[in-house]
């Protein structure tokens, strides 16, 4: 079996890689392209820590062949920030203490980011439902949900919340 050359569109940059047909997208991202933000945990689509976006939709990269990703627009957690400037969602995660060990965070961010694009002001129930496929081993769910809700709707969600206002100024 020989390696095949493919071009993947990752974070708006074309990346040329040599892969085997049985490489998953996660393996290519981490091992070939050094984009180690996406994590492998269960490897069978249960935990959600390998979540990336394909054409704006969250998918498990551990259950997606790299060959299947050719021709789609891939966004990983590395593509969320604009240079050194974090996205609102990332800043909100930091401000609300939604990161403990941090292993689930890339997956949480990618799922939440896709949710906020579809529904910029989600309520708690929608957020819970959207993040149901991402498991946090530290069980810091409450803060993660607050962080997502705050990004979408800072005024209504926590009117007295000073968090994040600094970053905005």
């Amino acid at each position, binding site marked *: 079996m020989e390696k095949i050359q493919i071009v993947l569109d990752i974070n708006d940059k074309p990346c040329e890689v040599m892969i085997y*047909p049985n490489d998953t997208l996660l393996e290519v991202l981490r091992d070939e392209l050094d984009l180690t933000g996406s994590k492998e945990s269960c490897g*069978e*689509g249960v935990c959600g820590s390998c979540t990336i976006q394909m054409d704006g*939709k969250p998918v498990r990269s551990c259950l997606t*062949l790299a*060959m*299947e990703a050719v021709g789609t627009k891939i966004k990983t957690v590395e593509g969320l920030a604009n240079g050194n400037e974090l996205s609102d969602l990332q800043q909100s995660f930091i401000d609300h203490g939604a990161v403990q060990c941090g292993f689930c965070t890339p997956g949480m961010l990618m799922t939440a980011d*896709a949710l906020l694009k579809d529904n910029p002001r989600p309520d708690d129930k929608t957020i819970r439902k*959207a993040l149901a496929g991402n498991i946090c081993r530290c069980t810091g769910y409450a803060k993660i949900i607050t962080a997502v809700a705050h990004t979408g709707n800072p005024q209504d969600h926590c009117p007295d919340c000073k968090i994040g206002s600094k970053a905005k100024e």
Partner: protein
Amino acid sequence: MRLPRFDYLKPDTLKAALELLALHKDDAKILAGGTDLLVRMKNGLLNPKVVISLKALNELSYIKKQAGYIKIGARTSLADIIASDLIQKEAKALFQACEKVGAITIQHYRGTIGGNILQDNRCQYYNQSDFHRSGHQACHKAGGKICYAREEADRCNSTCQSDGATALMALGAQIILAGKDGERTVDLADFYTTDGIMPHACESHELLKEIIIPVLGAHSAYQRLAYRSAIDYPIVCAGVLLKPSPENEIEDARIVVGAIGRSPLFLAKASASLKGKRFTDMTAFKKAADDSMNASAPFAVHNVGATLEYRCAMVSRMVFQALEQAAFSAAKE
């Protein structure tokens, strides 16, 4: 976990896919969403030489209404089915079933309806890693002569945990299987073989092309029980369909219980007991639910985690809830 090696083929047309399938037969596996196939390959349960991807076959992704039938292409993603007004209105059970498969934002964009109904039967003693399985002798499904789920069983007792299959069977769906030399239409109820090792009658040269649901003007509902709703497979599920007569009585009923046996179980006696009853007759519903429990309990084995007694008891609950919900949507009209 790494995948075993294989050749990746991506045909551009259905015809090309069927030719490849006819050429490779048992050596080939079809890849649609990959949420079932790739997990089994990672666990070393499957080792196909060739994987045929349906990625380029957009012709198999559609939902349309035609002459009293809803037709769904096999590669239609679960997300598309949930988003469809037609399915929500005319085939509520399927909508509810697809909504409950896996995590709403993740599996839905990859997982397909065809893959959901063709998924392999599962068993907690079989669907494990190579390392886990190396600790004991091979079971029936792995080529041995032992069943860990039921002592002294002479065959595999793995469980069909497909949400889509249970709902579609309640809706009286048919499927079209395409081969290189032609197509055949099969009732979904006849498609499942009740054999744990080969759970469905899809030949190795065939490809699931289309799912056909008759529009009967009936009310359907689906209920499922799982430990973690966004992650686990169901431990019990039930799909029901109630067809009203002009006098607003139940003219025809279908009760299907899933995740209990080797295939979804259509319970003819319990279903027939509802004929001629009124939609408000909760006693009849309760009795049909208890009958369903008694009829399906002998098929259950201890192989999906929950205790057997609990699962069997919950059959009655799931069927009753589904009946109640279908009757409720009937009352709303």
